[in-house]
């Protein structure tokens, strides 16, 4: 980017282009000018990523009536919290928040508990069939969930789990567990062997080593993986749509798509409320992601690139 800008600068018809360029590069303003196209590009990426967020914030703070007026206003006027009040007093939405916390929380804890022990075996032991299990887990991470929808649907209704949160907790393990195992194994493997060996020399059993030595060391990995599992369970839609029927058991994605206006008209979608709901359910995720940003990127690349 910079070189292109400098080249353009140098191409101007001046007597001594090289010295002019050098002078330009040295002066502060020259540097700024040369870097301008680059920063414009950065700004463009920034706006592209964030504009929709601005827009739903703006819509959530604008009174419902004003949303349906042209010309479109870019700043909420008058500023209002009515949409938020409306959404938070709608029991199906607050129920959905609670349901999603229960489902995503249980799935995350289950995956971490089961996955960590598997990662211990896969990451710190040498045994026959290890790479087979690794491949099995990897193929599970790319497993198309739609392929088993029908079988899950009949199984779930046979065990009377249809329209319960249990159905979701059970079926979400299919995408959280293999991923958790895969990432935690890569964390386990990256640990140096010394501490562990010292513990074994001192007579610790493998399970003690697991609890007292390894688990604390991969705590950052557990946090990252847990967050990723939580996000994917929190966001899931297909199974929730298929296995849940009563509004009281809705998860957040189901709730967000089932807002209807009080008048019952299909044309008057309550966009203000939907946008307020959107803000409520995305802000915690966004804040968590921003705090744990570096770790998430590390976890994602461990999951994806090391394969």
């Amino acid at each position, binding site marked *: 980017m*910079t*070189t292109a800008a400098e080249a353009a600068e140098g191409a101007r018809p001046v007597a001594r282009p090289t010295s002019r360029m050098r002078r330009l590069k040295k002066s502060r303003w020259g540097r700024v000018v040369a870097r301008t196209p*680059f920063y414009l590009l*950065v700004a463009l*990426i*920034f706006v592209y*990523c964030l504009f*929709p967020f601005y*827009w739903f914030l703006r819509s959530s703070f604008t009174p419902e009536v004003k949303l*349906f007026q042209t010309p479109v206003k870019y700043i909420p006027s008058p500023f209002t919290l009515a949409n938020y009040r409306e959404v938070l007093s709608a029991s199906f939405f607050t129920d959905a928040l609670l349901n999603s916390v229960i489902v995503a929380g249980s799935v995350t804890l289950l995956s971490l508990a089961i996955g960590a*022990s*598997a990662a211990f*075996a896969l990451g710190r*032991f*040498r*045994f026959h069939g290890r790479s087979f*299990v690794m491949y099995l*887990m990897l193929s*599970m991470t*790319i497993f*198309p969930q*739609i*392929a*088993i*929808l*029908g*079988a*899950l*649907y009949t*199984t779930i209704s046979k065990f009377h789990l249809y329209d319960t949160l249990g159905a979701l907790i*059970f079926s979400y*393990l*299919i995408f959280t*567990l293999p991923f958790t*195992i895969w990432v935690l194994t890569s964390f386990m*493997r990256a640990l*140096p*062997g010394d501490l*562990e060996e010292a513990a*074994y*020399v001192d007579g610790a059993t*493998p399970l003690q080593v697991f609890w007292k030595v390894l688990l604390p060391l991969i705590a950052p990995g557990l946090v990252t993986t847990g967050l990723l599992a939580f996000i994917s369970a929190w*966001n899931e*839609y*297909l199974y929730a*749509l298929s296995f849940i029927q009563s509004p009281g058991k809705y998860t957040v*994605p189901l709730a*967000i*798509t089932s807002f209807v206006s009080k008048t019952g008209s299909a044309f008057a979608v309550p*966009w203000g409320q*939907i946008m307020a709901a*959107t803000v409520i*359910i*995305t802000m915690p995720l*966004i804040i968590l*992601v*921003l705090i744990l940003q570096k770790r998430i*990127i590390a976890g994602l690349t461990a999951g994806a*690139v090391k*394969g």
Partner: protein
Amino acid sequence: MASVATPAQPRRRSRRTKLARRQTRLAWLLLVPSLAVVALVALYPLGKTVFQSFTDQEFLALEPTKWVGFDNYTQLFHDSLFRHSIWTTIKFSAITVAFEFALGLAIALVVNSNFKGRGMMRAVMLVPWAIPTVVAAQMWKWMLDDTFGVINDLGVRLHVLSHSHAWIADPSTSLAAVCAVDIWKTTPFVALLLLAGLQVIPQDLYEAARVDGANVLQQFWKITFPLLKPAILVTLIFRTLDALRVFDVFYVFFGNRPDTQTMAIYAQSTIVGDGHVGYGAAVSVVIFLIIAIFVVIYMTLNRLSGEET
């Protein structure tokens, strides 16, 4: 692979094998819960789906289920709705993966250079990825609204559009509208994956190239691209597989409007909506095979590019 610690190096051979056997047993014991879950949640249902696809099973049917052989598959072969859904899914996948890759690579290259606020940029790029697809779809549905949407308003104000357009309802633009959501949500994520690959490339390679007088384009083709290839392939695989099973965006935008069904929506509405479990299972098996074909293609590509270098 290699850095696996063995508990307390034993000296005698017999002790070692005994220890190894104990280790193996413990390892499998630790794996039991995970393998049980995978078997129960994935492998058993997969087998059952294949079985169901050869029957005429209906959800909550009164009559007993019959074995029908390949009937479902022959019927599927003539099912124009399903064929259309495959075509829609493949078009969607091709468009989004191509855009996400091209834009993502460009963004990764920009963010990879040194500048103030680079850390913040990387954080900003994670934001679209973190929000639920359903929510992203809802946001865009509102932004694309034909009368009160900001996209139409901006377009008209900036004289890109002569008049407001019903992006979602108009069949000629509905696919583009859906693609725009997916591209917005996933491009930054693709960029982050590629960025991770870029940062592993040693800087002195570029310095050496500069000393040898290579220009920026040459540096890209001779250094960046070959070294980034593994990261590119993995990113493409994951993106393609994700795109092929797309459900959420389409469903939020169109429900199960027939002209914009994806393979996943067709299967879901056949099984859950209509209760045709047997026929839907055949649909699922075909989807599974289509995705498997893509996996094989990519794995072959991966091996070929591995042999090349």
